[in-house]
C-alpha cells in the first residue's frame, strides 16, 4: 500500500497544527461557530445529536495493521470503545470531545492517516472496489490512481467551497463493486491499444433526487485524467446551483443543462486549458505511486486445499461461512475474506476496539498486512491462503466477526438514523435488527442468496436505499415513523434506482412483509442461481408489490 514520503507527512502534520489553532480560536471565541463550521467539516468534525463526531479518512478503504490498531486505541481512549465503518469506506467516532480532536489527529498522523475533507463541500474520499488488487475479474489495480486523485484533490485551492459535497469512485473490474454510476464522478478504467485510460461518468447520485450518471467520455488517457477532472470541477464550481442546497449537487447541473450540453461545457473547458494550466504529472511520479501497490508475494499453491476441504467437511458452520464470505482471488489457492460486521441483531458497521485488534492480528499473521473497508460497511482481508482459512475463521468467530452473510439478506447497509443523526426522520438501526431477526437462520439466508437491503432514515439516502435490491426509507408522518419500500435498485454496472412499491409500512410490519416478498421470490425463481434482482429484471416489481401488501 501507499506509504507517505516527507511531503505527505509534512502536509498532514501542517494540517494538524492548523486545525489545533482553529480549535483554540474557536474555544477562545475568536472564531464564530458559523465561520468554524466549514473548517471543522473539512476536517471531518460534525456536530451530531449528542456530541461531536469525527470522521477519519481511509483512502480508498485500505488500512494496514498498525493503522487499524491505532484506530482501536482511539476508540478505546477517546470514544466509548467502538467505531463505525461508513459507506465511504471511512470510520466514524461518535463520542470524541472537540478539545481532544487535535490530539486524535496527531495520533492519526503518527500512522499516516488524517481526517482531511471527510466532510464539507469539497472533494471527499475517493472510493474503489474493496477487492482491488486481489479480484480475479479486475483488468488492473485502480488504487494507484485513487492515490493520485487523493493527492491532487487534497487542499485543492479552487475546489474547497463547491456548491455541495463531491464524491469520486473508481473501478477497474467488469463487475462494478464501487457503485460508480451513483457517484458525482465515476471512473471505469479501460485499456485501449496498450494505453490505460478512463471512461468518465458524471452526475450520478442518491439523496432526494436520485440519478444514474451520464457517460461524458469514453476514454480519457491516464496522462490527461487530472486535467479532465479539473475541467469537470471548474464547470461545476462555476455553474452548479447555489440557491438551494437540495439542487446543488452536480447531478442537477447535468440534468438541467442536458447531458449533451454539459459534455460540451466540459470539453470546451478541457480544450481551453493552456499549457501552463496542465498538471505536470511526471511519468516517474505515476510509476513511483504504482510501485507501492505491487501485488504481495504469494507462495504458489494448488487451486484446492486439502486442509480447507477437510475443515469444511468437519465443521458445517465453517462450510456455510466459506461459501458466503470468500471471494475469488486472482491467484490460485487464495481468497478474499469478508469480515462481517453485520451480526444478527447487532449494529451494521460497528466495530469494537477489541475486534479491530483481532482483525489487525489476522492481517499480520495470515493476510499480508492488508485490510480493506467495504462500502457495505464490512472489513476485507484480501489475500488469505485457503490453507489458513480455518484458523482465520475460528479467530473471527471467537470475536463475533464470522457471520456467514456477505451480500445476503442480513448484510444490510444501514445509516445511523434517528438514534444518532440530527437529519433523520426515523430510526434505521432497530428496523435493520428486526429484519435480521426475521431471517435469522443463516442456512435460510444462504438459500435466498444475494439480496441487498439498504436502509436510510431520511431522504438524504446515506443508507443507499435507492440502490438496494430492496430499499427502505424511513419517513415521518405526523410524528409517526413509516417505512417506504422500493424494489429493483442496484449500484453495479446495471445501476438503477429502485421503484417505490406504495404506501409506507409501520416498523413492526416491515419484517413480515419482507418475509412474504422473499417467499414470493423463492416461488418465482427458475433456479437457485437466479437472484432476487434477476427475477425483478425478468418479471418487474409487480409480484413483489403484491406480496408486500398481502397481509391478512
Amino acid at each position: 500500500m501507499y506509504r507517505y514520503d516527507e511531503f505527505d507527512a509534512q502536509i498532514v502534520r501542517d494540517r494538524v497544527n492548523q486545525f489545533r489553532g482553529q480549535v483554540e480560536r474557536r474555544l477562545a471565541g475568536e472564531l464564530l461557530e458559523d465561520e468554524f463550521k466549514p473548517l471543522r467539516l473539512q476536517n471531518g468534525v460534525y456536530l451530531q445529536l449528542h456530541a461531536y463526531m469525527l470522521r477519519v479518512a481511509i483512502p480508498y478503504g485500505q488500512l494496514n495493521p498498525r493503522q487499524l490498531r491505532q484506530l482501536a486505541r482511539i476508540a478505546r481512549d477517546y470514544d466509548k470503545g467502538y467505531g463505525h465503518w461508513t459507506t465511504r469506506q471511512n470510520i466514524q467516532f461518535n463520542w470524541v470531545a472537540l478539545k481532544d480532536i487535535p490530539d486524535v489527529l496527531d495520533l492519526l498522523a503518527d500512522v499516516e492517516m488524517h481526517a482531511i475533507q471527510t466532510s464539507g463541500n469539497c472533494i471527499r474520499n475517493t472510493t474503489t472496489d474493496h477487492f482491488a488488487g486481489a479480484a480475479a475479474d479486475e483488468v488492473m489495480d485502480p488504487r494507484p490512481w485513487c492515490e493520485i486523485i487523493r493527492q491532487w484533490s487534497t487542499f485543492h485551492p479552487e475546489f474547497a467551497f463547491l456548491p455541495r459535497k463531491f464524491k469520486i469512485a473508481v473501478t477497474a473490474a467488469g463487475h462494478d463493486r464501487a457503485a460508480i454510476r451513483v457517484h458525482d464522478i465515476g471512473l471505469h478504467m479501460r485499456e485501449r491499444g496498450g494505453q490505460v485510460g478512463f471512461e468518465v461518468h458524471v452526475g450520478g447520485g442518491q439523496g432526494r433526487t436520485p440519478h444514474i450518471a451520464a457517460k461524458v467520455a469514453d476514454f480519457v488517457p491516464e496522462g490527461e485524467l487530472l486535467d479532465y477532472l479539473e475541467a469537470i470541477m471548474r464547470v461545476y464550481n462555476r455553474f452548479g446551483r447555489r440557491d438551494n442546497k437540495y439542487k446543488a449537487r452536480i447531478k442537477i447541473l447535468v440534468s438541467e443543462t442536458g447531458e449533451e450540453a454539459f459534455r460540451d461545457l466540459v470539453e470546451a473547458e478541457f480544450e481551453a486549458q493552456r499549457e501552463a494550466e496542465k498538471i505536470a504529472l511526471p511519468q516517474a511520479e505515476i510509476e513511483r505511486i504504482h510501485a507501492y501497490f505491487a501485488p504481495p508475494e504469494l507462495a504458489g499453491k494448488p487451486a484446492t486445499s486439502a486442509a480447507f476441504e477437510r475443515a469444511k467437511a468437519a465443521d458445517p458452520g465453517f462450510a456455510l461461512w466459506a461459501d458466503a464470505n470468500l471471494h475469488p482471488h486472482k491467484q490460485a489457492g487464495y481468497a478474499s475474506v469478508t469480515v462481517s460486521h453485520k451480526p444478527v441483531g447487532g449494529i451494521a458497521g460497528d466495530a469494537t476496539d477489541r475486534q479491530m485488534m483481532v482483525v489487525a492480528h489476522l492481517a499480520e499473521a495470515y493476510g499480508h498486512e492488508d485490510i480493506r473497508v467495504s462500502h457495505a460497511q464490512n472489513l476485507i482481508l484480501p489475500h488469505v491462503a485457503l490453507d489458513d482459512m480455518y484458523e482465520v475463521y475460528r479467530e473471527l468467530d471467537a470475536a463475533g466477526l464470522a457471520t456467514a452473510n456477505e451480500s445476503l439478506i442480513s448484510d444490510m447497509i444501514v445509516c445511523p438514523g434517528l438514534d444518532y443523526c440530527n437529519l433523520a426522520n426515523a430510526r434505521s438501526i432497530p428496523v435493520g435488527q428486526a429484519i435480521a431477526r426475521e431471517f435469522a437462520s443463516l442456512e435460510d439466508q444462504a438459500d435466498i442468496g444475494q439480496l441487498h437491503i439498504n436502509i436510510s432514515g431520511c431522504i438524504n439516502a446515506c443508507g443507499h436505499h435507492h440502490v438496494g435490491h430492496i430499499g427502505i426509507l424511513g419517513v415521518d408522518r405526523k410524528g409517526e415513523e413509516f417505512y417506504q419500500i422500493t424494489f429493483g435498485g442496484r449500484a453495479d454496472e446495471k445501476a438503477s434506482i429502485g421503484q417505490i412499491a406504495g404506501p409506507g409500512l409501520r416498523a413492526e410490519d416491515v419484517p413480515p412483509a419482507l418475509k412474504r416478498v422473499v417467499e414470493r421470490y423463492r416461488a418465482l425463481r427458475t433456479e437457485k442461481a437466479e437472484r432476487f434482482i434477476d427475477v425483478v429484471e425478468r418479471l418487474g416489481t409487480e409480484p413483489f408489490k403484491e406480496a408486500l401488501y398481502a397481509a391478512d
Partner: protein
Amino acid sequence: MPLIKNGAEIENVWSFVPDEAELSPDGCVVVTLTRLLSQADLLLARNTAVGVRLMPEDDPHLLAEHLDRLGLIEISFPKYTDGRGYSQAQLLRRRLGYSGELRAVGHVLRDQILYMNRSGFDAFETARADLPSVLEAMSEFSSFYQPAADGARSVFAARHVGSQEG
C-alpha cells in the same frame, strides 16, 4: 477596513462606485462589470485608473480585451462559502494572463486566505483578520500537491526535481 497586499498593510486608494451612483471626475474608481462593459470607452479613457468588481456569477472572460487597461480587479465574496471567486481568479491569472492586482473583497476570512492566495489573489480587504494572522495563515502549509495560479511547484513535480521530467 484593513487592506493587505503582498504581505503588508497598504492604504486603499480605490473607491467602489455602485451602478446607481454617479462617477466622480477623478480618483481611482472600481465599477461593476455591467458598467465597465456598457461604458468601456468612456471609462478607460479617463486620466485616472479604473478597476472592476466581479460578482460570483460574472464571467471573467468578458474582461479579456480590457485587461491591460485595468488597474484593479476585485472579486467579491458575498458569502465566504460561495467558492466561485476561486475559479474566476484562476481563470484571470492562468487562462487570461492578468497580472495586475487581484483583490478579494467581502466576506474574507483568515482561514480562506491561503486558498485565495494560491488561486491568484495578491490583495485582501478584510475586517476579520489582521496582518499577523493573514501572514500566519499563508505560511501554514509547507508544500502543495497540485499546481495553481500562485506558481508554487507541486509536490508531484518537486519529488522528481533533477530527474528528466522534473
